[in-house]
């Protein structure tokens, strides 16, 4: 007891001496190197030059740490990142690239050791010392006015030169952009903030406007504040505007695309028909085709929005997806060459730039499968082919096809399939329309109402050199052609309810009157024994309860499929029927024959 405090004190004094700063750093470095070599080197390279074995399959390429150039920082243009900046990228990853976040994968100490180790790859960290973060102001409030002012500056400082008028990354300069290493780099699609390298929030957008993204064409706008061209608040409003271009939340894939039913003849024939505006949109994510060779690791199309309608005779789909050009666009020919040089040599495919169209294919099984027995999602196989609609931007139009694998697709002609497409401001919208009944049921899908029909999507951006196996694919989803819900659906049960209820009341009243007058129950002059009357009352009650349970089932399925109005009204009907049934049952059961009134 008496020695331990002394020992503790001595230990406390010796400990920092034993583990002095350089010693701690050496430990950190050693651990950092271990972690780096295990988890980072395969992409970033053993020497940190961004040339690990996996790097050639990535665009943008992994960071080359030897240049001391970092995109996501809190420091001025051209300055080194702070330790916290590097740690943040390790923690959160780089959305829109192949760099994942490691916060949940590695212990904090390992991630900090990595920061120490990564800094050894460039001697700038040694010669320049610790950088100072920019002093950034706090966010201004967001309002319709602030967003509108942000739009004015988006126009006046020409963000659209790269990012496009609607922000979809399709500006005039977009096809000429390359990064510091000479690789092609896309102007980000501002409507997809979940792909923003340095984070999606308005604060992170503002920060990047101040710092720029070093090593990319995205410059810093801090000098504009220094020059007095814009105020800090105005730059914040620009950030608010950019944020407003993207939805509140990143869209998530839903399993089932619901095709609502419209009145006969009201399925739109034009892609720009206003009736599409109110139709629910379903998001289907797409990824590069990396199963069959030549594989494709630089997909341009990362998702399709799908809307669908039918009228009992025809079904129409409207597909909307971001695409930076209307291929083939000669302005993007050079871009194709860059992309192919960066991505293709290892895969051995056609590597010559050329006029390739944009394409989109919608895929179904040839018949609705009994169980969940689906053809192979990558365009089927020899045993189980798939049925497709194939649209192309040049020559413009769509045909039907049977596919038995990616490289075995036979056209079925275009009879009965109509298409209408429009490209505007970095976005395709495409309408595809066909009758529910197939012109050749042998090879073509017959659409059935009320069933879940498997559906999948493929997209190719021609100006990104995409064709054949180089493209984007989805897995199987389902499209559900909504069953007809005419007004009689709602009226009939109500009518039946009122009718049965009214008849019931009539029967009971007359029976009661007879009971009082004659001491017997009678219906329509026929005498009824009390036991029969009781049986009648109980039967009516039971039937009402059966009806109530059917209404309740309809109500629940309405709610679960997202049709709250249908769910609500069936719920009301179910409640009525339940009450009526219970009253009938209880009332009849409790009734005691009292004989003629005295």
């Amino acid at each position, binding site marked *: 007891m008496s020695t331990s405090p002394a020992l503790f004190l001595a230990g406390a004094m010796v400990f920092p001496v034993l583990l002095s700063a350089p010693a701690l750093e050496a430990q950190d470095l050693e651990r950092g190197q271990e972690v780096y070599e295990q988890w980072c080197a395969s992409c970033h390279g053993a020497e940190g030059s961004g040339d690990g074995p996996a790097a050639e399959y990535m665009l943008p390429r992994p960071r080359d740490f030897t240049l001391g150039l970092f995109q996501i920082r809190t420091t001025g243009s051209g300055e080194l990142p702070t330790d916290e900046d590097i740690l943040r990228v390790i923690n959160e990853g780089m959305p829109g690239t192949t760099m994942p976040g490691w916060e949940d994968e590695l212990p904090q100490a390992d991630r900090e050791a990595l920061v120490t180790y990564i800094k050894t790859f460039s*001697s*700038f960290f040694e*010669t320049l010392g610790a950088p100072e973060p920019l002093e950034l102001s706090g966010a201004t409030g967001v309002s319709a006015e602030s967003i509108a002012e942000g739009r004015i500056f988006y126009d006046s400082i020409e963000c659209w030169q790269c990012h496009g008028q609607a922000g979809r990354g399709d500006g005039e300069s977009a096809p000429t952009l390359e990064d510091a290493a000479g690789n092609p780099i896309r102007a980000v699609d501002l409507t997809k903030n979940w792909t923003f390298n340095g984070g999606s929030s308005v604060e992170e957008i503002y920060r990047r406007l101040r710092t720029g993204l070093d090593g990319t064409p995205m410059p810093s706008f801090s*000098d504009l504040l220094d020059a007095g061209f814009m105020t800090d608040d105005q730059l914040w409003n620009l950030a608010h505007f950019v944020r407003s271009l993207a939805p509140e939340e990143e869209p998530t894939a839903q399993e089932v695309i619901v095709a609502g039913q419209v009145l006969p003849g009201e399925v739109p024939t034009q892609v720009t028909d206003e009736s599409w505006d109110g139709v629910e949109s379903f998001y289907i994510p797409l990824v590069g085709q990396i199963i069959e060779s030549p594989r494709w690791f630089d997909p341009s199309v990362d998702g399709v929005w799908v809307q669908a309608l039918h009228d009992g005779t025809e079904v129409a789909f409207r597909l909307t997806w971001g695409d930076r050009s209307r291929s083939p666009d000669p302005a993007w020919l050079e871009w194709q060459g860059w992309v192919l040089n960066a991505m293709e040599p290892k895969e051995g495919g056609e590597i010559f730039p050329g006029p390739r169209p944009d394409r989109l294919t919608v895929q179904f099984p040839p018949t609705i499968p009994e169980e969940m027995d689906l053809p192979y999602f990558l365009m089927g196989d020899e045993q189980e082919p798939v049925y497709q609609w194939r649209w192309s931007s040049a020559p413009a139009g769509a045909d039907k096809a049977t596919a038995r694998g990616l490289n075995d697709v036979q056209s079925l002609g275009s009879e009965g399939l109509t298409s209408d497409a429009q490209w505007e401001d970095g976005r395709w919208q495409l309408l595809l329309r066909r009758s529910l009944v197939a012109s050749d049921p042998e090879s073509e899908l017959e659409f059935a109402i009320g069933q879940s029909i498997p559906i999948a999507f493929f997209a190719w951006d021609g100006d990104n050199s995409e064709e054949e196996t180089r493209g984007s694919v989805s897995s199987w989803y389902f499209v559900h052609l909504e069953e007809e819900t005419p007004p009689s659906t709602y009226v009939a049960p109500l009518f039946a309810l009122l009718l049965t209820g009214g008849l019931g009341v009539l029967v009971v009243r007359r029976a009661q009157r007879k009971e009082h007058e004659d001491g017997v129950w009678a219906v329509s002059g026929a005498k009824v024994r009390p036991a029969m009357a009781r049986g009648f009352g109980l039967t009516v009650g039971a039937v009402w309860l059966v009806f109530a349970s059917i209404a309740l089932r309809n109500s629940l399925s309405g709610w679960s499929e997202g049709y709250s109005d249908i769910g609500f009204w069936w719920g009301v009907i179910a409640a009525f029927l339940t009450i009526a049934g219970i009253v009938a049952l209880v009332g009849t059961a409790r009734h005691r024959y009292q004989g003629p009134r005295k």
Partner: protein
Amino acid sequence: MSRFLNFTKTIAPVAILGVTVGCGGGDAPAGGGGGGDAAPAEMPFDVATAGNISGTVMFEGTPPPPEILDMTSEASCAEQYDGDPTQSFVTVADGQLANVFVYVKEGLEGMDFPVPAESPLIDQAGCEYLPQVLGVMTDQPLTIRNSDGLLHNINASPTVNRPFNVSQPVNMETERNFPAPEIMVPIECNVHGWMSGYIGVVAHPYHSVTSAAGSFDLSQLPPGEYVIEAWHSQLGTQEQTVTVTTGQTTEVSFTFSEAMAGAEVPLGEPFDPHEHGPAQDGIGRVSE
């Protein structure tokens, strides 16, 4: 006219005021080790002993035809050209080659020179850099002006100095400097992919860019023997050893030729990123 006319009118005075009063401040990039400490106020030798180098750079053969630029998207730039907008990096008149960066490569080691007070200017006018090639001394402020009043970004990608990438969407000026010697620092505009410029950074004031007549001057050098290098963005580099004597002007001439087109042109200092010393193979990046 341009949709930015209104902005330009309103902003230009403000911008100029901002530049005069507020620039040259916090954002100047620090360099990688090569820069000297505080520069001396005076020349490190007796200027009465100075001599000069003067010369011409010749071109033999037929220069490539100027490249025709598609400037349809920037009408206000395009209209500054007679006929089709063109650009040439091999500019020859009467056999004389312009835009060659000539500088003292060896012979001034160990001498610290005062940084000239004036700030050399690169203007962006007609969607091109004027001049295409420019020399500055280490730590000397360089002014980058936008006279076009439309969006340019100045993306400088040195190797031993720190890079920068700043936006100039309106008529305005930006000031930057480079602390370390570097032959050459490329600058480009990502909005207008054809815009390329080159900045030579040396640790002394003895550098020059050949005029339209192909001539250059390196004045007021201490007497001695020097290696002079001539650098051209497409035709590569040449060296000569030159002796400077007090009160004399030594004539030098370099000759580039058609056959040198496509030569490997050193761009950025050759350096080992890990050590920030000379690269082992002695080759830095190479211009495209």
